């Protein structure tokens, strides 16, 4: 299996390389369009700043390449954010694969530190997800999508079919994964796992062949390893 990692100006790609090697895959790190297009799986990981990352991707024509990929693609952390429509970080237009806008965390209380750093839980109660206080907080408006694609669902639920996602099948609810980020993707119709921090946000997204996680599966112990394994098996 040919697994390619998108090479660009984002940091900490090595941990993904190591994680794939632990799963018996020798990934190639490349910014070459032909190499990326011919790979069986493409990972788009990294940490960094959105406007600089997008600038680099555009300069190297990688924005078009990533958008047009047809094999399974997994965005991680800033990768997930760059796959969205726009990011509040640097007021940046992104790839637009997921029609949702990335927002900055706005702490409400002193103990809500930013970056959101550390281990937090994926909410997947049998196809339903719940927030820590048992209901979905809608007073912040984060759940409304401006192009009318979001439809109001009963409080605290998402379409169950979306939750039985290929990457999370069989995973127990409330599993811990590792996050480091200051911006987040609001819950939207492409959300496949929710995490609560300041607000409920999209810990994972899925649309067609595009998958994304806000957390770092490569740093999330056995749970993360299983997610990466499932992605490689898609």
């Amino acid at each position, binding site marked *: 299996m040919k697994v390619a990692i998108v090479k660009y100006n984002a940091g900490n790609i*090595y941990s993904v390389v190591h994680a794939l090697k632990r799963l018996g895959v020798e990934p190639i790190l490349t910014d070459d369009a032909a190499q990326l297009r011919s790979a069986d799986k493409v990972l788009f990981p990294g*940490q960094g700043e959105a406007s600089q990352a997008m600038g680099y991707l555009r300069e190297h024509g990688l924005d078009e390449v990533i958008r047009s990929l047809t094999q399974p693609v997994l965005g991680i952390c800033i990768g997930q954010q760059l796959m969205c429509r726009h990011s509040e970080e640097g007021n940046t237009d992104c790839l637009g694969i997921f029609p949702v806008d990335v927002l900055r965390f706005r702490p409400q209380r002193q103990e809500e*530190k930013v*970056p959101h*750093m*550390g281990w937090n839980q994926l909410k997947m109660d049998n196809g339903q997800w719940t927030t820590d206080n048992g209901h979905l907080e809608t007073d912040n408006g984060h759940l409304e999508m401006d192009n009318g694609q979001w439809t109001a669902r009963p409080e605290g639920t998402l379409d169950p079919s979306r939750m039985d996602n290929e990457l999370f099948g069989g995973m127990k609810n409330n599993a811990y994964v590792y996050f*480091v980020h200051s911006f987040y993707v609001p819950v939207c119709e492409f959300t496949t796992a929710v995490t609560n921090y300041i607000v409920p946000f999209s810990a994972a997204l899925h649309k067609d062949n595009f998958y994304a996680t806000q957390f770092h599966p490569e740093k999330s*112990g056995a749970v993360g390893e299983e997610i990466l394994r499932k992605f490689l098996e898609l």
Partner: protein
Amino acid sequence: MLAKRIIPCLDVKDGQTVKGTNFVNLRHAGDPVELGKAYSEQGADELVFLDITASHEGRKTFTEMVTRVAAELNIPFTVGGGIGALADVDRLLSAGADKVSVNSAALRRPELIDEITAHFGSQVCVVAIDARQDESGAWTCYLNGGRIPTERSLFDWAHEAQERGAGEILFTSMNHDGVKTGFANEALRRLSDALSIPVIASGGAGAKEHFRDTFLLGHSDAALAASVFHFGEISIPELKKYLQSEGINVRL
């Protein structure tokens, strides 16, 4: 909920852990990679590897160790010790470290924090502060592992580090370090309440209750310890079960 983190710290000299000979049934307890893996399997949330080597040769060995740790470990780890320039950060991140901790070099030349965060992002930059409280109650920062006092106040420096882009503050109380009577919770609370970035408590862990107290009273986001873990005085699974029973959210 975001879990409170438990972070064992390993001192490394010439590629070998300095403490840790009394740890579980490891055949190579002196091997930082083996020890790190054992901690990871026990439920450590992150690890810190501190290079206490002085020589250039030792630095090279440490970087090689970082590469091996990155290849084997599936949890985040921070490396520190002797980081003086952006090139050191680049070398260690390229070897696979998730974060670097800077201490004396940043206190001497605070712009180092701006440089690191501009190049690699805030999330990689942990600013470690060693401070001591004097008789008047004032907390003062120290250089070179606590050997050289400065004029800087702990709170003042921590705030500047945050403003310069630090992703986390790792505060070691020299008054509490090695005494095993608990963390400096009063100072930690003041620090944590004044900052918008996470604070890691260090220095003073001697019993499970001390971890509870630093989370509840000190408002710490994470707690770091060395000898109580290395010498098996506290096991991480037991500690986490205890913290959970005390109503503290931990990753189990």
